[in-house]
């Protein structure tokens, strides 16, 4: 693989810096607090598991926004950590890069990989807002709709082949619809993702059971408690492509604190289902985001 993730990080940092030195409205921080959403596990603007149709960052149509995030998901037998950056351009286009580290802990030894064996994966994301204003169009049921792609490159080609995966890289395509129902202080999201990814891609793409694209559903509900607090839950279905280990659905229940537009912290209970023969992978999800 000749991807140079470092280059993209530099690119994103550059974009953020460029935004930082240009005139005031180049970073107008003009969106209302919380209406930029959070960053989901693969780096796109969204909830924790699902990408949303909202463009990340607090820039409006005349401006840009950007953020960095770090997330740790500690479940029964594994730890998934992610680090990444995302840029929202003119409330229209979103670019993101995230690196995921999947630590197999003691299970690595049991599976013959060695203790503490780690997979890592680069996720390059792009999202285009197609139509709708999910925040301000409160007199209609029409949601904000966006389409997106996540290109994922896993670094463990040989192991992936050994467990029955067909490929070490793959692209997910999704359509997301997001709507804030202000009268109810409730934000709803529905996403349909076409994917071949096993466990988000951490166990590769396609498998000996199935190698074709499957439509998967991802739903989110968030209740705004105040300008600075939200609670919610999400559900995400996943493919089941590998013979050696069944894969199930994931869900989370989260609480998010947004003391200001430039920082947010999310704590969640998460259940990722069964992973690599280990059942009931549940635990804690913690994420910190900084940006503008």
């Amino acid at each position, binding site marked *: 693989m000749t991807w140079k993730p470092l280059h993209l990080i530099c690119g994103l940092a550059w974009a953020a810096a460029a935004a930082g030195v240009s005139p005031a*409205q180049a970073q107008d*921080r*003009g969106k209302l607090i919380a209406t930029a959403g959070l960053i989901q596990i693969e780096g796109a603007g969204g909830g924790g598991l699902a990408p949303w149709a909202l463009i990340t960052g607090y820039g*409006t149509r005349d401006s840009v926004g950007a953020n960095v995030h770090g997330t740790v998901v500690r479940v029964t037998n594994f730890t998934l950590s992610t680090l990444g950056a995302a840029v929202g351009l003119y409330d229209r286009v979103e670019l993101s890069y995230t690196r995921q580290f999947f630590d197999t802990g003691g299970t690595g030894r049991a599976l013959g990989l060695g203790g503490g064996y780690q997979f890592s994966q680069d996720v390059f994301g792009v999202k285009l807002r197609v139509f709708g204003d999910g925040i301000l169009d*409160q007199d209609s049921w029409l949601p904000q709709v966006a389409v997106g792609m996540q290109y994922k490159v896993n670094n463990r080609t040989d192991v992936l082949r050994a467990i029955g995966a067909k490929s070490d890289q793959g692209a997910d395509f999704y359509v997301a619809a997001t709507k804030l129902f*202000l*009268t109810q*202080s409730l934000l709803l999201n529905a996403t349909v993702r076409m994917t071949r990814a096993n466990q988000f891609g951490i166990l590769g793409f396609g498998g000996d059971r199935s190698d074709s694209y499957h439509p998967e559903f991802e739903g989110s509900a968030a209740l705004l408690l105040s*300008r600075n607090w939200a609670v919610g839950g999400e559900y995400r279905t996943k493919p089941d492509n590998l013979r050696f280990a069944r894969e199930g659905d994931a869900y989370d229940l989260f609480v998010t604190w947004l003391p200001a537009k430039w920082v947010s912290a999310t704590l969640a209970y998460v*259940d990722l289902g069964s992973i690599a023969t280990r059942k009931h992978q549940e635990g804690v999800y913690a994420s910190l985001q900084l940006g503008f």
Partner: protein
Amino acid sequence: MPVFSSVSRLAAMALAAALLAAPARAGTLYDDLGGRAGVQRIADGMLQRALSDPRIKDKFQDADIERLQGLLMLDFCKLAGGPCRYPGRDMATAHADLNLAPRHFNAIVEDLQDSMQAEGIPFRTQNRLLALLAPMHRDIVAPPGAKPEATP
């Protein structure tokens, strides 16, 4: 891990209950905002904040503030279901020359939120008023080509 499972089930039930709980409604939104006196204080508070808000105060340079103060109150009162007639211009006409961008619109929304917060209006009641105002962005905010950069 049974502990986690029961915690998650409890949390799920709590969330479902919270989602289903209808906002407490004493009567119309107008009543919940404190009637005529309450709406007056909310509108005044928003205008005072807007006039000293560095993001938008320049937009009010040429405005007749006293007239605006009266009209804002009547506009909010009528929107919230109160016994008021709004005698002013429509939103598109009133804001046509101001070259307003989304950031200006959201800035005044934040000033309104601060005003309602200071009046002790519960968050969910605040959002019921915002839900009525939000669609007005289509008339108030200038179309993208209008180059709002000309006036900050």
